């Protein structure tokens, strides 16, 4: 396996864009990425698209060549990857595998979702398709309700509180206010976070990520070749994808996600580092409780300690382990298929000291964790300076 680097990145702002369609968002991100990498579309040898539910959200199937040809990428393999909210991370993982194995020398990954053309009720229904439709979803579960049940159990087993959850929302909104591309650039107070209207108890409006439109792209090359295109390539030091049951009621313990633990352990081993070495991370905060569970499954803290760790300020920009300096899914937005790729774009920018107001001081080793469904898919990536 040869070393692989990200040579360039590009993305659209995240938000609700009534006048933009799925393809135009994907093309904007892809074109920005190729331009930033000084690569022409004819040099791209394979195209991977991360997209969760384009066929349901906008009625379009066969999305990979639909987008690659609009980018001027012809003839080469164009493949869509679907792994619920981990679609973007999974597309990246498969692109990495193809470059690392020596099959391709220049691969473009785009993640995209166009969600806001549907009503909230319909979006809820489409997202529920990432759960087990023959059981939990048929019983009336929604994605907020699945994570609400995880939160209830976490509170019961470990004493996690509503204030711990709210601390995640307050922190990520404060970070999002510094991100010019964030869907919601507005700080919120602890009182607001605690008093959002109920969605699925104990989760309220401010515990839930946003329904957004957006796209993100990265360009992968063998590490030695990437140097011909940029003087600041970012190495993929470790990466792994893992899987688990789709239905929450099949998991022995819903307060931990084995897929996250397995992906993290493999990625740490590949990078030859441990969780303490990670300086900052972009975690999959689809709901506030998800960031708390992720801190534990990535072994940043012991099991059950995620809530107090958040409340201590350790995960703030100024803390010992800044989490979601971009604002996370909570404030940056969560266009599902774009999310996993956007996390990598944000870490790429941090490592290259190009993150503007979001720039962190300790920025040479970052981790991205992209979760699908209620833990059935997970991709963990570790990026660092070459």
């Amino acid at each position: 396996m040869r070393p692989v680097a990200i040579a360039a990145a590009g993305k659209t702002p995240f938000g609700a864009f009534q006048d933009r369609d799925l393809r135009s968002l994907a093309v904007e991100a892809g074109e920005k990425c190729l331009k930033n990498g000084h690569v022409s579309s004819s040099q791209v040898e394979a195209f991977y698209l991360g997209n969760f539910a384009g066929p349901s959200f906008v009625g379009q199937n066969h999305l990979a060549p639909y987008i690659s040809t609009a980018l001027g990428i012809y003839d080469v393999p164009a493949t869509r990857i679907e792994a619920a909210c981990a679609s973007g991370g999974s597309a990246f993982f498969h692109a990495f595998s193809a470059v690392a194995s020596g099959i391709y020398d220049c691969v473009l990954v785009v993640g995209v979702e166009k969600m806001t053309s549907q009503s909230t009720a319909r979006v809820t229904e489409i997202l529920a398709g990432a759960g087990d439709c023959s059981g939990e979803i048929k019983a009336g579960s929604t994605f907020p309700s699945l994570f609400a049940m995880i939160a209830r159990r976490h509170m019961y087993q470990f004493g996690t509180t509503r204030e711990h959850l709210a601390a995640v929302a307050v922190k990520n909104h404060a970070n999002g206010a510094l991100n010019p591309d964030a869907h919601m650039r507005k700080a919120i107070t602890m009182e607001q976070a605690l008093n959002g209207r109920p969605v699925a108890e104990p989760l309220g409006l401010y515990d839930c990520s946003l329904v957004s439109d957006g796209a993100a792209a990265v360009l992968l090359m063998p590490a030695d070749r990437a140097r011909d295109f940029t003087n600041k390539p970012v190495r993929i030091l470790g990466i792994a994808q893992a899987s688990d049951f789709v239905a929450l009621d099949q998991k022995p313990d819903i307060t931990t996600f084995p897929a996250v633990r397995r992906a993290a352990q493999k990625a740490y081993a590949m990078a030859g580092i441990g969780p303490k070495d990670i300086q900052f991370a972009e975690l999959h905060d689809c709901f506030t409780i998800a960031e708390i569970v992720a801190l534990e499954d990535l072994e940043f803290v012991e099991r059950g300690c995620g809530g107090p760790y958040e409340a201590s300020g350790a995960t703030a920009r100024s803390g010992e382990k800044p989490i979601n300096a971009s604002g996370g899914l909570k404030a940056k937005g969560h266009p599902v298929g774009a999310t996993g790729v956007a996390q990598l774009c944000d870490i790429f920018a941090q490592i290259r000291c190009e993150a503007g107001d979001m720039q962190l001081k300790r920025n040479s080793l970052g981790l991205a964790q992209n979760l699908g469904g209620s833990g059935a898919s997970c991709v963990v990536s570790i990026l660092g300076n070459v």
Partner: protein
Amino acid sequence: MTVYTETVVHLAPEAFAKEVPYQVVIVTREDGSRVTGRVIGERVVIDDPVEQMELRDGVPFFRKVK
């Protein structure tokens, strides 16, 4: 059978919109297996004993055992 976890849903897809707020539970059966269902009547909390009242379209509906 006891309640393993629960939530009360306030925002639902169209198919369930008329029923909100409603309670969803994961119940642990005597054999240790789990199933997702709904609650009839009084709301339940974790560890409450429940009994299955009926099966509607494959979905079990539970009630708290007093």
